[in-house]
């Protein structure tokens, strides 16, 4: 009896722990590299996580790890690498759909909208997950100068809850409330300051009108009273204010228009971020 107990004890105490301790010993063993990479991934240290996962993949094939490498690169904004890794995931993998979603998301986020649309059109498949990508497909038109697809087609992939917001973006893209630079210049040439008021710079416009008008009056009055030197000083000031005001109106219209475009793209990006670019959240760190 005792020898049997001893042998069983020996077996369990040495044989099984031995397996763990070999991992325990070598902190650079393949399984430990993966454990460390998982830890880095969950600590948001994505670049290091990706490099460790890549080290792991040199010994074993694992599609989850491939997907996590793609995600890591995507999360640090290295979209070209992310695209490369999502592209590697095979069609028979459980991650193939997610990888395709993430591939297109990375392509979109890299700002390569033309290739996004080209590849998407070539790979279009009718299923629910891809339908989510339809939304991104239409959103890409907000960032290019291409003509927008008809409103009904555009709204088609979006649900009722999203439709209002998309309609608003569509409206802002098709009819941006731009101010005409030519109109601002002409207005300021005719009535100093009016071009600035037109572009929303009301305070500047009023000051420009008063300064030019005042100098004009003083120049006229001084010439009339034969104070030619002061007359010329005020004339010089009128020329300075008048030219500055026309130039300022043109610049103000351009700045206003750039602001409209910038705010529009910012709002769209903010909305896409809130929606996580219509891709699901993955929780590998539970």
């Amino acid at each position: 009896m005792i020898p049997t107990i001893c042998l069983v004890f020996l077996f369990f105490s040495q044989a099984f722990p031995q397996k763990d301790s070999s991992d325990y010993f070598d902190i650079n063993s393949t399984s430990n590299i993966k454990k460390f990479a998982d830890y880095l991934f969950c600590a948001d240290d994505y670049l290091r996580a990706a490099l460790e996962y890549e080290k792991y993949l040199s010994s074993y094939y694992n599609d989850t790890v491939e997907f996590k490498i793609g995600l890591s690169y995507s999360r640090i904004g290295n979209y070209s690498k992310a695209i490369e890794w999502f592209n590697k995931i095979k069609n028979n993998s459980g991650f193939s759909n997610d990888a395709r979603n993430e591939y297109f998301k990375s392509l979109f986020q890299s700002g390569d909208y033309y290739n996004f649309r080209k590849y998407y059109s070539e790979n279009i498949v009718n299923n629910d997950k891809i339908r989510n990508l339809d939304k991104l497909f239409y959103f890409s038109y907000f960032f290019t100068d291409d003509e927008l697809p008809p409103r009904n087609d555009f709204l088609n992939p979006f649900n009722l809850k999203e439709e209002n917001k998309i309609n608003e973006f569509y409206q802002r893209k098709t009819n941006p409330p731009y101010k005409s630079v030519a109109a601002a210049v002409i207005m300021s040439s005719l009535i100093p300051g009016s071009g600035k008021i037109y572009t929303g710079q009301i305070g500047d416009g009023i000051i420009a009108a008063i300064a030019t008008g005042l100098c004009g009056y003083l120049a006229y009055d001084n010439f009339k009273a034969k104070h030619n030197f002061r007359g010329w000083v005020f004339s010089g000031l009128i020329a300075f204010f008048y030219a500055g005001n026309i130039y300022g109106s043109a610049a103000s219209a351009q700045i206003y228009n750039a602001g409209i475009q910038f705010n529009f793209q910012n709002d769209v990006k903010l909305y896409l971020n809130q929606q996580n670019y219509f891709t699901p959240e993955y929780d590998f760190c539970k």
Partner: protein
Amino acid sequence: MTFVNKIFFYFLFVSLIALFFNSNSFSQNEFQKQLKIQFDFAKELYNKEEYFDAITELKRLIFFDKEKEYSYSANELIGETYKMGAKFSDAIQYFTLAVIHSTNNEELFNSKIEIIRVNILRRTIDRALSLLDSLDSDKRFSNKKIDISYWRGWAYIFEDKWNKAAQEFNKVDSDHELKKLSEQVENSKYSVAEAKILSFIFPGAGQFYTGNYISGILSFGWNLLWGYITINSFIKDRIFDGIVVGELLWLRFYRGNLQNAEKFAEEKNKEISNKALNFLQFEYNGPKP
């Protein structure tokens, strides 16, 4: 079972138990050796200025060091490495972890000083000074007053308060190199108030004081011209002309002259400070933030 058999099985049992514990202790030693090798490897990477890899290896060490034997030294080194890469917030995060894992007062003091040094470097001087104050009032570090004064002096240098810096270095050593440098910088600085007062009394004089002669002459010329036209308008009973020229032109150039004098004095002072900081960065051999 015979007596001999009993003895035999007893010895067998004891040997197996001994083998089990011995083998585990062997594993433990091997593991500690591995961690030591890992730490040395990370240090080597740090010394070779391969900072990204050094941090990776140190993080690996921390991850596998379940006994937390290297928690202080690894976190301290990660902080140091982030600091070398100018990632100051990350550096402070890891120095704070080093503070948490410090095992004695010396380690605690060193990691707190490291946090202060990073705060000095990233110019969050108020934070650095408040941390120095808390170290100063901590009885455990009553024998570290000189170090505290030394780093307070550096904090004042980075805050551009060279006079206060000189006072702190004086506490370290009345003949300290940094004390002399701080005094020298303080003495060679321009007085911003003096520059403004000079320009207030005589337009352009503040610019002359700071060595900007052309700007001084221009400022004087513009003020003379618009001053003359303004006064002339009032003399000729063209009151409205006088007010407009005086307000729109003369006062504008007069205010500009004051602002200019202030700006030039500040710029000159910055130049002097930067020259001193440049010297400290490249030629001073003592401990630096």
